């Protein structure tokens, strides 16, 4: 290696020109949208407020950012010379423990939180972070079956989540069922056992909807499939909003029964959880129970999708993802293959939805907007389609990171009192999606090897072609 390769010459004039160009573009983009703010005066008149300082700082940031990126790219040649060594056997072995390690950490998470912050602060950390992230991990793993394994881009996954949530809520709060159960078994039965009876039912209903919505779109592929599923998701949401007699409209459904500990309610009564186990009453037991409940549901999703991959139907999914025409000419029934992927994915969405409704105790159509679908899809895609570990990592980063923004109160001291980091969460989220696609279009863990292979693993040709090697 000679000297010139290790110290590449950087053309600073060119860098400066590029950065200046970017700054001019940024000025053009932002001078009206950021430099001027439309505001409502006290007498309801619209007024314009000028913000030259903010505009200047953002344009300056763009200039500096473009300059640094340019510098990084110019000096990159020296760095990529060092070829990445393939993973040594020891490292590869270590990497294969990553998923069990992640799951082990999640399993121990409530205990760790309890030990570090104590019972008082723990509810927030277990609920807002733990349960929230696990719901998305479960949804991600469910959607992974449709998108990652079968390669069907579904932008309306939240519809099945909604079907699960509404199935559980409507049946659990339905007066005739309650009266019937009270007469047949006992007055307190339905309130305690509703969740456990309706959880599988919600999943099955969601699976039915998966077949129902999957059937008409079988012929579509790629972008068109994505748009039609989006349309279905929106139709379901709009019907939930407008059919007030059925779903309560915008007001939603409230006082949904919470899950019991297999028949023992979480309350301060004598037959409650704390009294039965001789513990002092605290709401934290319910939170910890909910955490392990969604943890178990998520693990079930992962286990089922891992096992299914090795079954003929799972192999058919993977074949379908790689090449539909080849698949059909080999005699695989693509209709059944697609429908099973849709309905199994939908079923797990339904489970997650029922859990969500039981955890919140209140649902409304607001929770099932398109952005949620996009968020779940982003988790699957950013994690690397088909990878279980990838979904865990990207859920922790995206959902946990976004939740963390709420905790950044100290930023108020820097940017002034009106600064609310939480309002930037979707902005950052969208930015992450774009940047991830630019940086790693295949996701964090891009594993598309076939699950089953004969004698030795070979790289899949279509993989290489699509990456641009072919």
């Amino acid at each position, binding site marked *: 290696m000679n000297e010139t390769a290790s110290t590449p010459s950087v053309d600073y004039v060119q860098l400066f020109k590029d950065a200046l160009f970017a700054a001019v*573009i940024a000025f*053009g*983009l932002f001078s*009206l*949208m*950021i430099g*001027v*703010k*439309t*505001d*409502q005066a006290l007498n309801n008149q*619209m*007024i*314009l407020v000028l913000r030259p300082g903010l505009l200047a700082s953002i344009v300056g940031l763009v200039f500096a950012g473009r300059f640094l990126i340019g510098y990084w790219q110019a000096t990159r040649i020296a760095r990529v010379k060092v070829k990445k060594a393939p993973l040594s056997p020891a490292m590869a072995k270590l990497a294969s423990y990553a998923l069990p390690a992640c799951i082990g950490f999640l399993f121990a998470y409530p205990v760790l939180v309890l030990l570090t912050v104590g019972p008082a602060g723990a509810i927030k950390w277990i609920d807002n972070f733990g349960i929230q992230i696990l719901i998305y991990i479960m949804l991600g793993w469910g959607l992974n079956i449709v998108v990652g394994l079968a390669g069907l*881009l579904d*932008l309306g996954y939240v519809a099945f989540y909604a079907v699960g949530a509404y199935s559980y809520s409507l049946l659990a709060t339905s007066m005739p069922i309650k009266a019937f159960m009270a007469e047949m078994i006992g007055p307190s039965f339905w309130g305690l056992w509703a969740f456990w009876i309706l959880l599988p039912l919600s999943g099955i209903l969601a699976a039915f909807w998966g077949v129902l919505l999957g059937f*008409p*779109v079988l*012929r*579509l592929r*790629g*972008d*068109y499939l*994505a*748009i*039609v599923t*989006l*349309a*279905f998701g*929106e*139709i379901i949401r*709009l*019907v939930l909003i*407008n059919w007030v007699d059925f779903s309560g409209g915008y007001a939603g459904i409230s006082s949904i029964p919470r899950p019991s500990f297999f028949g023992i309610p979480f309350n301060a009564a004598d037959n409650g959880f704390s009294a039965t186990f001789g513990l002092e009453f605290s709401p934290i037991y319910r939170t910890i129970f909910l955490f392990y409940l969604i943890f178990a549901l998520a693990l079930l999703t992962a286990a089922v999708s891992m096992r299914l991959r090795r079954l003929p139907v799972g192999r058919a999914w993977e074949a379908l993802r790689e090449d539909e*025409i080849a698949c059909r000419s080999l005699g695989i029934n693509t209709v059944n293959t697609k429908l099973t992927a849709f309905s199994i994915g939908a079923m797990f969405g339904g489970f997650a939805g029922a859990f969500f409704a039981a955890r919140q105790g209140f649902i409304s159509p607001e929770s099932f907007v*398109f*952005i949620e679908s*996009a968020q779940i*899809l*982003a988790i699957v*895609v950013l994690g690397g389609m088909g990878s279980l570990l990838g979904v865990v990592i990207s859920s922790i980063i995206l959902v946990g990171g976004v939740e963390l923004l709420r905790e950044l109160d100290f930023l108020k001291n820097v940017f002034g009192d009106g600064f609310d980091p939480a*309002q*930037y969460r*979707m*902005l950052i*989220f*969208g*930015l*992450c*999606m*774009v940047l991830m*696609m*630019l940086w790693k*279009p*295949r996701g964090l863990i891009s594993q598309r090897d076939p699950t089953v292979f004969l004698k030795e693993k070979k790289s899949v040709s279509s993989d290489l072609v*699509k*990456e*641009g090697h072919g």
Partner: protein
Amino acid sequence: MEVFLQQLINGVTLGAVYGLIAIGYTMVFGIIGMVNFAHGDVFMISAFVALIVFMAITALAGFSGGAVFIALLLALIISMVVTSLYNWTIERVAYRKLRGSFRLAPLISAIGMSILLSNFVQVAQGARNKPIPPIMRDTITIMDRGGFQVAISYKQILIMVVTAILLTVFWYVVQKTPLGRAQRACEQDQKMAALLGINVDRTIAVTFVMGAALAAVAGTMFLTYYGVVVFSDGFVPGVKAFTAAVLGGIGSLPGAVLGGILIGLIETFWSAYFSIDYKDVAAFSILAIVLIFMPQGLLGKPEVEKV
């Protein structure tokens, strides 16, 4: 009859706006085969730019008839320029690098861009509705029978006339100029077009700029017609315009406008005769039905599946 006529006028006006947005979808899909999911939000941004320019000028020059006219004209022009810049930047930053990547990458990047744009406007301009004072409220009564008037407002005439003029201009550009030829060549085969000396990158960038300019016209019209805009206004008109593009046959310019007008008519008649609550359901259902049963659209060419 009067109701029908009135709704016909309203529907065509609305359809013209959808048609203008749909052209952006159809041109981009035609040339690089991707659904530019962020296009609806580009339309929303154009309405915001027009709003800010309009308010700035009327704040300086007052609300006389001439001032309003100049303010609208300048709002239209500046909005076209700024929105074009936005779409150019989006293509350059978020899509160009992904052109050779696997199929879903540009779509996901576009979804991210759509979320980014609408939230950028929410953060930069606030989440509230942004109204402008009512302008051009005069109407022409076409028919007056038994107290029910069929009226067409100057706004509606303006929207239809501007749409018609712009369509003619764009149709001429695409059909008769070297630029349009380059575009159609890239549509057919990018590699071959590049070998024959066409700057493919620039042609695609120009396509995005043209789509954005038309979306900006639609945005300005939307603002004058409804008099209010909010950061979330990109999504639903965006999906409806995409429906229009698909209905007309994706890749076809006249198809986009035809589809836009059909969608506008269906929406207004649905609201007038059935139920206003379900008008978006109607639009989304049409989207699903057309994609499932008639993916080539009214004026499009059927797609041949190649192995």
